[in-house]
């Protein structure tokens, strides 16, 4: 027995001291390493889908971008009544450098841009066909342009643009400090990306960006930076060739589970993915919101003059649960897509550009405005009605309200907002403190300490 025990335990010894070191190699089950993620055509394409998901996060086009642009440009049209102090400060034009909404937007726009850059850096692996490669490149350029355009619109002050990176970062132990580019450099990249995207993208591309998405965004960009001829050409091209049509009813353009006939680009939201913060802050509780943090004021209805009965846009509201709050009807489907570029905007861009250039390319300004008004059931303009930039601005406010246009349209047209001059520093976002804390030496915008 004793001997047996000894043998048994000696056996156990040798077992005990056996090497189990080969078990120390474990790989993650849920994640990929960059060589894999960026190394095959299939994965590059999936990374491209991931870039749309990034763009659709609530920090960016999942709602907060549009909401912030409207709160900053509220000008009496809307009131922030919620208890989040970050959007409240934006509404009050008293933005702290620590504003979390502003910081999250900044970070996420750069995350979109970086992912697009990674795709552009690794296009070589898309080998199946030139068309596929062009499509991937075109979409990546479209997304990068979208990210930088809105970053620059919100954060550039005078000639001081935002930092511009055109190559993807994988190695983060490098020096990551970067100066701000000039406003012109940023817009130049945005324009050239979109011009390339128009060339590269197919005519239709499902829910993803196609040629006309890029061209429509290009029209928006050119209008914003004052290249009216280019804006006119792009908008006209979209109207003539995209095959998109205005929805029969104004309401049909919103809250859609699948893209409407006038969507040139929409952020996809389903019950299983995507985020819609416009619902959170604009909608009633029954529609998934917080009972209407953002309310529409009487002043907004004043824009419709005497036409508040017939014009669908003057009636497109929901009554909130509390205090009969007037809430926009544009956001009532919690899992509905978020329309980011609609055909109606193209008519208004063409009208404004034609007006400014005294031309009638495609149609006269009056005709284009009537196209939009007609769909809304509004009174049509007569031949002898005067159309000026103020009228176009107001038409844009009537048509495009709560979709992220307020601050840009007022500032572009030199209209003061809530008592702040159009060029007031308070109407530009501060560079977030998280950036100034880590990107040493980056210049803060004037007015922010």
């Amino acid at each position: 027995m004793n001997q047996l025990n000894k043998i048994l335990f000696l056996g156990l010894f040798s077992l005990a001291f056996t090497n189990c070191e080969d078990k120390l190699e474990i790989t993650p089950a849920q994640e990929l390493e960059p060589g894999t993620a960026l190394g095959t055509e299939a994965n590059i394409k999936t990374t491209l889908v991931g870039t749309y998901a990034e763009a659709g996060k609530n920090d960016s086009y999942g709602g907060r971008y549009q909401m912030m642009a409207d709160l900053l440009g509220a000008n009496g049209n809307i009131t922030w009544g919620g208890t989040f102090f970050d959007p409240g400060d934006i509404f009050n034009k008293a933005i702290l450098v620590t504003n979390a909404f502003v910081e999250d937007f900044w970070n996420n726009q750069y995350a979109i841009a970086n992912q697009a850059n990674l795709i552009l850096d690794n296009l070589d692996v898309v080998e199946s066909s030139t068309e596929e490669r062009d499509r991937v490149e075109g979409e990546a350029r479209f997304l990068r342009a979208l990210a930088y355009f809105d970053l620059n619109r919100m954060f550039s002050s005078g000639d001081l643009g935002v930092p511009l990176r055109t190559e993807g970062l994988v190695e983060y132990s490098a020096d990551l400090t970067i100066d701000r580019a000039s406003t012109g450099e940023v817009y130049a990249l945005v324009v050239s990306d979109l011009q390339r995207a128009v060339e590269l993208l197919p005519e239709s591309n499902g829910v993803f960006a196609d040629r006309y998405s890029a061209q429509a965004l290009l029209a928006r960009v050119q209008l914003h930076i004052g290249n009216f001829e280019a804006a006119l050409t792009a908008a006209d091209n979209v109207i003539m060739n995209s095959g998109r049509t205005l929805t029969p009813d104004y309401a049909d353009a919103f809250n859609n589970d699948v893209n409407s006939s006038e969507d040139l680009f929409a952020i996809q939201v389903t019950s299983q993915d995507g985020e819609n913060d416009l619902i959170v802050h604009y909608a009633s509780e029954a529609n998934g919101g917080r009972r209407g943090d953002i309310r529409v004021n009487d002043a907004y209805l004043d824009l419709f003059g005497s036409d508040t009965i017939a014009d669908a846009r003057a009636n497109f509201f929901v009554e909130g649960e509390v205090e009969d709050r007037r809430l926009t009807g544009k956001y009532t489907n919690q899992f509905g897509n978020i329309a980011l570029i609609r055909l109606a905007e193209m008519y208004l861009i063409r009208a404004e550009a034609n007006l400014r250039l005294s031309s009638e390319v495609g149609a006269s300004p009056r005709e284009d405005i009537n196209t939009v008004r007609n769909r809304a059931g509004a009174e049509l303009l007569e031949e002898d009605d005067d159309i000026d930039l103020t009228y176009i601005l107001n038409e844009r406010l009537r048509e495009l309200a709560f979709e992220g246009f307020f601050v840009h349209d007022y500032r572009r047209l030199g209209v003061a907002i809530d008592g702040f001059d159009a060029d007031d520093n308070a109407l530009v976002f501060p560079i977030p403190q998280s950036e100034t804390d880590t990107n040493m030496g980056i210049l803060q915008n004037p007015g922010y300490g």
Partner: protein
Amino acid sequence: MTRIITTVLLLFVGLSIYAQQVITGTVVDDEGIPLIGATITDVGTTSGTVTDLDGSFSLTVREGAEAIEVTYTGFEPQRVAITNATTYEIVLSSSSELLDEVVVIGYGSTSKRFLTDNVTKLSSDDIDKVPVPNFQSTFAGKAAGVRVSQTNGKVDAGMTVRVRGAASISAGSDPLYVLDGVPLINQDESQNGAPLNPLLSLSPTEIESIDILKDASSAAIYGARGANGVVLITTKRGKIGKAVMRLNISGGVSEPTNTVEWLNTEEYVALFTEAGNNIDYDVTADFDRLSNGTDWRNSEVDTEWNDVVFRTGQQNNADFNISGGDEKTIYYLGGAYNDTEGIIIGNDLNRASARTNIRHNFSKKFTGALNLGYSKTTINRVQDDNSFTTPLQGIAQSPLSPPRLENGEPFGGTEYANFLLALDYGSYETRIRRLTGKASGEYKFTNWLSFNSDFGYDMSNTTEDEFNGSRTPFQSTNGDAFSSTALQESYVWANYATFDRDLAAGHNLNVVVGTEFTEAQRNYNSVSGIQFPSDDLQTISSAAEITAGAGSFTAYNFMSYFARAQYVLNSRYFVKGSIRSDGSSRFGADRRFGTFPAGSVGWIVSEEDFLKGNTTLAFLKTRVSYGLLGNSEIGNFPSRNLFGTTSYNQRPGIEPVQPGNSSLTWETTKQLDVGLEFGLFDSRISGELDYYRKLTDGLLFETPLPGSSGATFINQNIGSLKNTGVELILNGDVVNTGGFRWNASFNIAQNNVEIISLPNDDMDIVVEGNNINRVGEPVLAHYLPEYAGVDPANGDALYFINGDGEDARETTNNPNEANRIVAGQPFPDVTAGLTNTVAYKGITLNFTLQGEWGTSLYNAAGRFQSANARFFDNQTVDQLNRWQNPGDITDVPQARLFTNNGAAASTRYLEKADFIRLRNVTLSYDLPRDWMERIGLTNTQVYFSGLNLLTFTEYSGYDPESRYDAVELGRGQVFYSAPAARTVSFGLNLTF
């Protein structure tokens, strides 16, 4: 290395065994009562026995053995020389000092006398009867340099246990918990944002003792996992003797330790009317809305929301165990039940647990043991502090609002969603099933060489089920539900050989050599659904639409080799060395193994001739230790550059989720400890004084990156951190006459933490804007604009600019212009505890006072609740001191509705949180034994126990110990964080 170990062990095995003789005797206490279960060992060997029911023993000793040693917990050990006699009557005197207690040190145990390490031991006396459901809270204030605090007053709240300050910034700072040799899973599986204490599954009633390894010399045997200290838990086991049955039942009630005072309706109306007037806004409609149309002008409704949120909680405990054994087998079987209804409405837990510990001597050489504990804990949880529907956010509601309508339905028109809707129509239930077991065998080749093989298994299964019915706030999908299952399991196989032998008279050598392999895995699945046909159908199966799902797997392994040797010369000179080599899958391929050595020396000065017999300085020992420890609590794949999955329009996508760093490795901490142990006046006063210095290198940081890089942080091992401190423990046998006994134990620890170096030329690292890691400052120091009060001229809030220039002390009303300053630290630098035990004729009073000094807390909710009526949130009463007229001198700015006047993050919301707390009190009475014996009971005790009965603090918030549970706890923030519970409980303890 493997081969060397094997060879050495084989050499030991080859040695022969001595001839033997038998000695017998009895062991009694100084009152002549037989001591059952006293240990008798042949000195210099591990061979020994225990006394039986009559205190008798019989021990076979080696031929030529010189002495036997008799030990019994609570008594002075005694060495008895072996003479020609064969029977010995041994009288033990009760120990007035704690010098000789047995201390568990990992892969073995030793007498505290021989210890060259800093280890704090707590016994079941410290743990029993404290009316809390988690075991960690029971030792708050009782161990020097060990800070224990519960996140907040939720029954399930996470625990923060810090041994000698935090040695890390971003990696885990919790100590390693080891239960009967099995490292415990301590990963929080909460899915609702608030931390959940994973060790809630362990009933305090199962614990016999807790040994906390604080210095490097003791913890280094746990190598890469020892840097935060090691808590060794030993569960109860049987003693030789007839079966002893114990039944303990207790019940109590609890309430919040403190509440904050809010405005009543009259004050609220006055303040907000003024706030509205100041911006030309009429608040009448808002008051009508908030008050549900009641007459707010005459305070028709005046809700004290504190009373809606809090309730009187209850606690009921029952535990039963039976233990005993004979020379072959000892056993312990126990079961316990705890039912705790928290002080926050909707928050409760119950736990049923059982434990079996059996040990059997199969032969004189081979002993096998099985420890098995299992439990099921069910918790009804409330949302995290940052959720609108967590009960504590109810205090933000206006006093004008009724909590419920006349029909009992929650009022839906409150300023914030009424948490009562979530409470009535939703649920969040968490269940934890835990199984921890160990099968072990010990084979004694000879008296001085044994081999142990321990196979431990730990399984923690946490399921969470959330349901929000159609009437809960923000509900637009006819209800939603979430269900998750997290299964964590690990097995540990440790094999080690112990050599313990007197090499010659006065020379003892103890060597432990072993290996340990750990494999841990986690499987997680969850599913979410919406669109329920009825509020009565609440499981996911009833959801018409499934909206999300998750299934994931992750794992880590450790392969470790360790050795420890202690040499004792003449029972007074000690030298110890240990080394552990750990390999882990968590580290980059190039850095897979780390080696952690430690060494220590000790000298019992009082054993020298010049002090021997000196009763004034009865005991004096000095010890010095130094060693290297690791911290591997850095997640499973922190070094890798990773792309994760996402989806867009239900199509799969990939996105970067973590920037990589292939050279990432564990943090290493070098710790020096210099200690002095002393016993004065016949050891009626004993104590320990320790100085330590912990230097942590390769500090793991989630270093913030500029957002413009596309990522926001990276894991890096850069920078170093220093903790230095002094700990003093004093134990006094204050009075011990005529049956009256008063013992006091005092401990105080001071810890200074300082960041020594940081990446990128010591560049500051700002965390979430308001905490900073800066060289020369403590970790995560508060970093805030400095509030400068109110401009008497116009009521504007002012901040100091604190720039570099001459205008440093100028003020501004624009918070963006104010530079942040380091404004205090989020944890204490001094902690102290005082435990007194007073006993007289069966009556024992025991109480512990605990104090902490140096913490500053930032109230992140101040921006809402003390914001001079910015939003319609109810305000703390101090906001009534607002500026009203030019010339007013006050700290509270003019009330301006919807306007940020002083509500930016600033030192305005930072406050010192020093406190002294009567942590627990137990008053017990042992009924006279002769009465009890008549009805078959050997002992009957009734007791009263109180927790947190008194708190002395200047802190104005709910509780100086509560923390915001939805952000990193180390940041020292509070945000609608519940105060701790104050509990009184009565119990009955029966022994048959």
